């Protein structure tokens, strides 16, 4: 079924898969009614979906370079869109985004605009041109356009730092979810997560990752949309909540004034990571608030357009036109989740706050709230905390502590949905974290095997050896990332924002100007990569509380250090390019050739 006519049968294969998944959900719902325990259902959900991904990974095994690096360049635009969406939406988007909006209000919404608007940059400045180039990796473009191993090597360094920062966060997230669903300690969960990730990518490289990512997208989007729409219908917020939650926003603003939002926490002894709601849901102040919003959005957008695991997805389409089309579908598929997250955050918050709703807990009897099943479940694992600080027997807003990460995971329980939905959400979160980790690990391993090993160290290596090196690196980097993830050094979201800032500081301008400015040369690109990356990293060290701990300039904190790195990169690149010799006629002709879609790719078919 998979061999030969697989591409022709994609629609049928994935329709069958989606149908099978729906049947599986119904089966789980029936088992729940028959009295099977919640824990068993959680294990079945995670086990079943991971087994499917591993099967797809096994069936897509390959020993061909073109298939391993760019999935044979035969992925149709719509499917590449789905795969990119899964590649893109990480554990952070799935698990942490709605919780961030719940707690962060306007300031946090910069992530929503940034992580969608970035695709406009990908489409207009990058994807079609990189596809025309015909490269295998992002440093491949830098190395060929600018010439010389130094530029290639700098690109590899930036890529590895940015992607590695990101991948530890994803392995951390998949470990957390696997640990909860399979009832094992986090340290084991990380290794189980890694095993699942490697099963998908080891044997088939990009080809295997592509087809598992499509499968993972279907799971994650179903798992995100079903609970929100179900909750909305159960609680009478409307059939499709996305277009009608404006009233809920207004109601929350009304309630915020009544229930004393913004007061300090009223209890001691809360476990680490939990917090009370202090930021208004929708209250932009203008001025510095606006500045912080747009700087965050800009870093996330430029980072989107520079992150190699995203850009390399567009190398897999059959044509330039298909690459562009697949950017459009990528953003559409991503949009489905991103415009749901604020609805989820708003409706969940309303359910907890509004005393006229049966799910309300704020302002209710402290004892009654403490006895709710979902409160007890989450409190027992230290992710939620209640304390009647003023001893009046009523739960106040500043006596209710929760970890932002659990908003999405707890929503089905808050709304009183059956447990099968919670199992589905766990499977979705795992799919999101695994698919992103897969893409990132592959981006790192491919850059090291193709650009560092094959192009720089041993250009005579034969195909077999190259693919063995690629797999050994994949395994080694995965193990290293899991080791670091199991130390739990950073929160999921902070690490993700850093990855974007590293990428845009070092790679954004060298990539853009490589296509859009013929005068850009190797010396300029090297200066741009090094200066931008070093300036951004130095500022991060200066401003991060765990580093030097300096005062941020103009509110530019450690989440948006790309704002420092990018201009430095641009100035250095332009200045050094202009001070040194213009690229020769051959390179200029190559840039001209990149700018038109038709004709052969710049790099030959199997380089």
């Amino acid at each position, binding site marked *: 079924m998979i061999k030969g006519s697989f591409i022709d049968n994609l629609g049928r294969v994935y329709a069958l898969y989606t149908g099978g998944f729906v049947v599986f959900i119904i089966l789980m719902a029936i088992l729940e009614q028959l009295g099977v325990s919640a824990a068993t259902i959680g294990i079945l959900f995670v086990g079943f979906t991971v087994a499917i991904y591993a099967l797809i990974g096994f069936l897509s095994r390959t020993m061909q370079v073109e298939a391993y690096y760019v999935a044979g360049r035969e992925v149709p635009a719509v499917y590449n869109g789905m795969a990119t969406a899964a590649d893109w939406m990480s554990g952070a988007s799935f698990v942490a985004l709605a919780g961030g909006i719940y707690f962060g209000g*306007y300031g946090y*919404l*910069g992530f*929503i*605009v*940034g992580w*969608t*608007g970035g*695709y*406009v*940059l990908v*489409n*207009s*400045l990058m994807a*079609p041109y990189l596809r025309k180039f015909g490269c295998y990796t992002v440093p491949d473009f830098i190395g060929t356009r600018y010439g010389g191993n130094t530029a290639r090597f700098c690109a590899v360094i930036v890529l590895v730092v940015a992607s590695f920062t990101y991948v530890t966060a994803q392995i951390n997230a998949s470990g957390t979810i696997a640990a909860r669903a399979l009832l094992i300690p986090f340290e084991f969960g990380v290794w189980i997560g890694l095993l699942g990730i490697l099963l998908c990518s080891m044997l088939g490289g990009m080809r295997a990752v592509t087809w598992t990512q499509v499968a993972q997208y279907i799971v994650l989007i179903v798992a995100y949309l079903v609970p929100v729409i179900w909750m909305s219908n159960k609680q009478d917020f409307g059939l499709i909540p*996305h*277009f*009608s*939650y*404006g*009233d809920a*926003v*207004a109601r929350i603003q009304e309630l915020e004034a009544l229930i004393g939002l913004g007061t300090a926490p009223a209890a001691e002894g809360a476990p680490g990571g939990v917090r009370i709601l202090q930021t208004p849901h*929708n209250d*932009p*102040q*203008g001025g510095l*608030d*606006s500045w912080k*919003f*747009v700087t965050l*959005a*800009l870093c996330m*957008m430029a980072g989107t357009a520079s992150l190699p695991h995203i850009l390399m997805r567009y190398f897999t389409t059959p*044509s*330039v*036109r298909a690459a*562009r*089309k697949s*950017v*459009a579908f990528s*953003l*559409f598929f991503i*949009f489905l989740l*991103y*415009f749901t997250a*604020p*609805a989820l955050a708003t409706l969940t918050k309303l359910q907890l706050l509004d005393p006229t709703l049966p799910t309300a807990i704020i302002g209710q009897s402290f004892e009654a709230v403490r006895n709710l099943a979902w409160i007890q479940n989450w409190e027992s694992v230290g992710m939620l905390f209640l304390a009647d600080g003023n001893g009046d027997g009523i739960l106040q807003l500043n006596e209710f502590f929760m970890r932002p990460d659990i908003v999405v995971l707890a929503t089905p329980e808050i709304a009183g949905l059956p447990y099968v939905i919670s199992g589905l959400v766990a499977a979705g979160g795992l799919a999101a974290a695994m698919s992103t980790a897969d893409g990132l690990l592959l981006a790192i391993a491919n850059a090291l095997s193709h650009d560092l090993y094959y192009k720089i160290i041993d250009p005579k290596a034969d195909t077999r050896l190259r693919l063995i090196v690629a797999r050994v690196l994949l395994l080694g980097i995965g193990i290293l990332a899991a080791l670091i993830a199991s130390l739990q050094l950073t929160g999921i979201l902070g690490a993700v924002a850093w990855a974007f800032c590293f990428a845009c500081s070092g790679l954004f301008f060298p990539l853009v100007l490589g296509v859009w400015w013929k005068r850009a040369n190797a010396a300029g690109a090297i200066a741009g990569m090094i200066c931008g990356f070093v300036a951004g990293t130095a500022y991060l060290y200066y401003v991060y509380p765990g580093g030097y701990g300096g005062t941020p300039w103009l509110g530019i904190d450690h989440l948006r250090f790309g704002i420092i790195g990018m201009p430095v990169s641009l100035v250095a690149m332009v200045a050094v390019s202009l001070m040194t010799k213009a690229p020769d006629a051959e390179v200029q002709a190559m840039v*001209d050739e990149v*700018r*038109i*879609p*038709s*004709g052969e790719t710049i790099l030959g078919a199997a380089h």
Partner: protein
Amino acid sequence: MPEIGQETKARHWSRTRNLTILVLVIWFVFAFVLPWFAKELNAFSFLGFPLGYYFIVQGSLIVFVLLIFFQNWRQDVIDDEAGVGEE
């Protein structure tokens, strides 16, 4: 495939560049200008949402999706008219 003249190439690229600039201007307005003035826009209401909030959580996102489809449609026309489309 026939060789494409320098003049055609130059014209193709200048049209591509103009389209890209147009797209980026629209992108800039919805990505930065409207969110910047969210406070002021919140005085208005749209579909029951405060307008500034609406753009950030939904309006700008919809515009981004449509913008990419629009750009691809125009770019295909530009490519085909210059004879450098792939199909």
